[in-house]
């Protein structure tokens, strides 16, 4: 069976699902990326009123943002059960830490609004966000490190995800999410808080560029197959485009920050995430767990993939539409210096 042949319906469906889950994951990374990033930045918020403004600016959307990850989980479970049952098993500790981080920040949103001890819940929100981001970095780093699988079961160690490489990924993810968070704040706020966000964005953009560079060079070095794919002609020209496009976006990001533009920084950082993500997906494909499982091996049988496509595929534009609607309802600038009406 030729895994690359497109007249193989199972391979075609598996590829479609790889793309759909990739799409959901990129929605998640961008949308929850900025609210997790703002959570990290809230740890160093200039004052309690600003922290309150930062938290309430995402009060109406964080749940929908996080739900994209729930969808990634559900669709991955159905379309690639082998990946779900081995990768999550292998990443037990980072996944658990991520969930604990989500729990902490999720409840803090509500309790912050109700409580008179704002600082306590504000810090819990920030720490929970940071914990979730660190855990996601280790999960991604651990996945790129490779998940040891034999006979369709995880056979590695529970600490396999921990390595110098994954530490670099963690730092890159922290910096990247913080940039997204800061750029969202630039978009959303006015006055002092917006100035504060410009300063933060400049610092973290530098760090993001640094760590993204390290990870981009280090990843192919870990896998001869990826290295080979990148550096054979004519593939090289296609693959070289992605880092070049990302570098261009970094240049535009720094320029937009220097010019104090309001929307452009968010869009450029969003594009950086997209290009990095597409680069990663293109390097991995047709593997879904690098070096271990291809999408064809992991994919559920054709009938499941079709059934899921009928049930979920048609909903994708609907889900996107009502998410955009909800964002549009809560669009508009927030003045963080306006008196708060929390009781």
């Amino acid at each position, binding site marked *: 069976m030729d895994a690359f042949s497109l007249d193989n319906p199972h391979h075609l469906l598996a590829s479609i699902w790889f793309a759909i889950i990739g799409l959901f994951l990129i929605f998640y990374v961008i949308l929850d990326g900025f609210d997790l990033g703002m959570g990290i930045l809230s740890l160093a918020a200039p004052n309690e009123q600003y922290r309150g403004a930062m938290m*309430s600016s995402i009060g*109406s959307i964080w749940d929908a943002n996080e*739900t994209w990850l729930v969808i990634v989980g559900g669709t991955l479970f159905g379309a690639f*059960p082998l990946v779900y049952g081995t990768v999550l098993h292998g990443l037990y500790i980072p*996944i658990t830490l991520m969930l604990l981080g989500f*729990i902490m920040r999720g409840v803090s949103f509500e309790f912050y609004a109700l409580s008179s001890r704002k600082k306590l819940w504000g810090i819990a929100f920030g720490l929970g966000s940071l914990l979730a981001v660190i855990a996601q970095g280790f999960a991604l780093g651990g996945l790129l490190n490779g998940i040891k699988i034999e006979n369709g079961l995880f056979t590695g160690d*529970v600490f396999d995800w921990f390595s110098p490489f994954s530490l670099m990924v963690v730092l890159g993810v922290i910096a990247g999410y913080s940039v997204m968070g800061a750029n969202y704040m630039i978009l959303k706020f006015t006055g002092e808080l917006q100035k504060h966000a410009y300063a933060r964005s400049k610092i973290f953009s530098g760090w993001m560029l640094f760590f993204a560079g390290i990870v981009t060079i280090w990843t192919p070095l870990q896998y001869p197959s990826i290295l080979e794919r990148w550096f054979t002609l004519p593939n090289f020209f296609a693959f070289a485009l992605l880092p070049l496009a990302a570098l261009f976006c970094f240049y535009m990001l720094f320029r937009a920050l220097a010019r104090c533009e309001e929307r452009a920084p968010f869009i450029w950082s969003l594009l950086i995430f997209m290009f990095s993500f597409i680069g990663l997906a293109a390097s991995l494909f047709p593997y879904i767990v690098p070096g271990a499982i291809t999408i064809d091996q992991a994919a559920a049988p054709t009938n499941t993939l079709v059934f899921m496509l009928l049930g979920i595929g048609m909903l994708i534009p609907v889900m996107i539409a009502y998410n955009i609607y909800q964002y549009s309802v809560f669009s508009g600038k927030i003045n963080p210096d306006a008196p708060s009406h929390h009781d």
Partner: protein
Amino acid sequence: MDMLQNPEFLSRLQFAFLAMFHILWPPLTVGLAIIILGLEATWLKTKNIFYYHQTRFWIRIFMINFGVGVISGIPMEFSFGTNWGPFSIASGDFFGNILGFETAMAFMLEAGFLGIMLFGWNRVSGRMHLFATSMVVLGSTLSVFWIMVANSWMQTPAGVEYVNGKFIINDYLAAVFNPDLGHAFWHMFIACIELSLVVVAGVSAYYLLKQREIDFFLPAFKLAVLALVIITPLQILIGDSAGGALAHTQPAKLAAIEAHWETNPPGEGAAWAVLAIPDAAKQRNLWEWTIPDALSLIVTHSFTGTVVGLRDFKPEDQPPIWIPFYAFRIMLAAGVFMALMALWTAWLLWRNKTRMSHENISQNKWLLRGWILAIPAAYLAVEMGWMVREIGRQPWIVYGMMRTQHGVSELPLATVQWSLLSFFVFYLAIGIAAFYFMRHVLRQGPAYEAAPKYIKNKNRPMSPMNDGGY
């Protein structure tokens, strides 16, 4: 304790703990959303501000509850991958697919309109807001449906073959509409409505008892009780029907629930043990208090109907007995208590209908205390029901096909101990905090917000929280 040194048992304990904590929240979300939708629609139709204030008050309770429900649900989804990897791999083609449906059809729908429902009062029109609320209702109801599809399939797996450690789907619709789905969905969905009505009645009773906000809570109390007069007996009937179905679909579970060891011979009825001291090692009850023929009557609706006993199953195929037996009785008692409260109150209301006023209902302190007590009873019934259902399914993860021990991820003992302890500490803290903030909201009482004016310009420099009115 030997069992706490066993990673498989700890994974089970962890999932049980996650599930037992999680199920405290969604029933109120599901049921209260429906009640809120009704109140909001009535407000838009009548323009009576009373209904708007009611809507806003219950939304505040809803909000605390919803958030904890969401964040405690996510760990359950991921647990299938982390702790139950082999089960996920074996069953993902169906089970994972269904969870995927749930996330895309239900969770996202809820989340996509929740922000508008909670914070959008001054940003969208009245009709649009009502639409958002109804999408939250639809989303949460669909999530009950899909999760009960997944769960009922584990109870009565249909439409699949178990070949070489993997479930192969032959018939999708048979798997979705498996034999247990009808009972499972309706019993859970009605439980959500019953629990929510009991919360409305109990919270209202609390205010009536304190002589606070009587004009606000007396109508809510009466309405909730009248609905419960229909809902509580209905739930008992559905439960009875579900029990009867178990005799065909999961006879070992039924026998464990009733501590029924020996199949009754033809022509003789099986006795129902009201209370018993079951002993799995001796395969009998050490002591029991029984009602002759009653078990046959309950299960088969005939005095001599055959009810299969536990001894017809090999010991390794028998579920644990103590928890299903007693959890079932507690659930039943709680259900009957709520039904009796509803009937008693309805009778008082009917008897006093001509002079029905807050004096004579507020003076009946025991009635009001009874309703406050009904709140924990409702939660207890839900918890006990799930324990009966899931522990009674053992030793199978997919009933009769795949054993629980074959579905668990191999993990080091210390890792599972750590995660279990972490979840325990986090959930304990959240549970206490949520309780505290619920009490805070109850102490504040209704806020009597000004009705929205439907300002078209949504780009006002305000934060979304400010529109929330608190």
